[in-house]
């Protein structure tokens, strides 16, 4: 296996308006994502997941350490990495169809092909018949699905997805999870998938990176053994429950620690 994406001692700080010293969003994150791997990142809210994704997309630059794509430092965004943003980020002046099409335009596809491909991917996410709707005429979940269709349609080698299924009902989420796994298997894409959901993480990922907060770190990377995923209802498998619990415990301990830190900080603030 070759390494597709490599994060090496990555640090990201933000200048803070509230405090004198910079805010550390990510500290010493080291993680390799193999070519064709499905990597899931879980972590509590505010631990730096979106920050990490922005770095991988090339939208921001690390304060320290480096990020390599195919062994070369990431210099900026590029069409080989597709992003599904946490807040959909559709253009409100374009229809659902138009929002999917302009990604293909960037790739230089001819217009008849663009139209056809966009329709196909909107159908894939269950939005056939909504092609000419504008975003304000769509529900949150539907907008999210348009955003997913947009990044799938232009077929990037690497897909970076920031809680793409968060706004969906359980039924649609399950359908799209299966669809995403299918697309991943046939296309061999490398996927970095961020989620809050532990079930989702175990269900989708080959490996799950569990993050802790303040500062954001990769606490542990858990392998999800491929064997038990072959069965019919993998969520009923005892191994599924065990992995689920392991991740839950890691997140829980981090939550406890964070709450204690907060209490200490408050006590210090009161004392001062």
């Amino acid at each position, binding site marked *: 296996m070759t390494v597709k994406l490599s994060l090496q001692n990555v640090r990201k700080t933000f200048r803070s308006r509230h405090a004198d010293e910079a805010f550390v969003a990510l500290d010493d994150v080291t993680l390799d994502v193999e070519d064709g791997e499905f990597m899931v990142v879980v972590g509590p809210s505010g631990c730096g997941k979106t920050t990490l994704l922005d770095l991988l*997309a090339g*939208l921001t630059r690390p304060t320290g350490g480096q990020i390599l794509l195919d062994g070369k430092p990431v210099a*900026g*965004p*590029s*069409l080989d*990495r*597709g*992003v599904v*943003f946490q*807040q959909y*980020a559709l*253009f*409100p*002046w*374009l229809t659902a169809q138009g929002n999917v099409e*302009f*990604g293909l*335009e*960037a790739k230089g596809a001819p217009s008849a092909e663009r139209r056809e491909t966009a329709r196909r991917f909107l159908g894939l996410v269950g939005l056939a018949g909504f092609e000419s709707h*504008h975003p*304000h*005429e769509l529900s949150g979940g539907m907008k999210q699905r348009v955003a997913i269709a947009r990044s799938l349609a232009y077929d990037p080698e690497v897909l970076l997805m920031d809680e793409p299924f968060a706004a969906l009902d359980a039924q649609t989420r399950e359908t799209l999870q299966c669809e995403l796994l299918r697309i991943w298997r046939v296309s061999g894409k490398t996927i970095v998938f961020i989620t809050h959901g532990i079930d989702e993480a175990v269900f989708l990922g080959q490996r799950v990176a569990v993050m802790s907060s303040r500062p954001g770190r990769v606490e542990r990377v858990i392998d999800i053994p491929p064997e038990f995923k072959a069965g019919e209802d993998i969520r009923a498998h005892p191994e599924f429950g065990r992995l689920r619990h392991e991740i839950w415990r890691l997140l829980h301990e981090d939550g406890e620690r964070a709450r204690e830190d907060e209490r200490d900080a408050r006590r210090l603030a009161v004392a001062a």
Partner: protein
Amino acid sequence: MIAAVKSAARRFDPRALALPLAFLAVWEIAYLRAWVDPRLIPSPSGVVQTAWNSLADEAFFPGLWASLYRDLAGFAIGGLLGVASGVALGLSRRLDAAFNPTLNALKQISLFAWLPLISTWFGYDDGAKILFIAASAFYPVAVNTFEGVRGIPKTHIEVARVFRFSKAQWVFRLLLPAAAPKILVGLQLGLVFAWLATIGSEFLLANWGSGLGNLIIHGREALDVGLVIWGLVVVGLVGSLLDHLAQRAENRLLRWRGA
């Protein structure tokens, strides 16, 4: 144009007429009772008579068209330049830093104060007037376009970066549509300013060329108050019609925003 008038008529609420009609009634009574000097204030029916004569006058419509032509030509030039400079200033911090203070200082000079300079340099014909009208329309368009471009949400900019937009795509696929609501506000204001400037330039340069403003000034010189009032009515009506058309165009272009 016809459709616009029709739709305006359909949406018209008759209650809006109450105040003007009451005013007209008081005015007519004041005239009949000779409360006012009839040379300074003619009767409403007298104004209607004047209006009728004026419409029949062969100079009226050429004057109206001349005004409209200058208005729209000046608006088109000022509007285009306004959008272009607004986009340029919105895009480049460097241009903004270099030009914005100067533009802000220039804004403090009333537009009409430029007229003597413009006529000294460019004379009194159409060209000079159109230049003045264009300058009047330019300002609100440029300022609003600038604000529209600066207000584009970060998420939209990130999408454009992820999709590696070319320069042309940045302008036509992101900036212009995203800033369209503000740009259209600017254009609508620009249209109002252009019309004010059209009539204003004709007032101040009344001895040259023809136009609605000239009509009013000639009425004053002939001490024909009826003609002056009629001129004001036409100026008001044309202005409202232009504004109404602009509003309709805006609603149509911004349908994607929903209700």
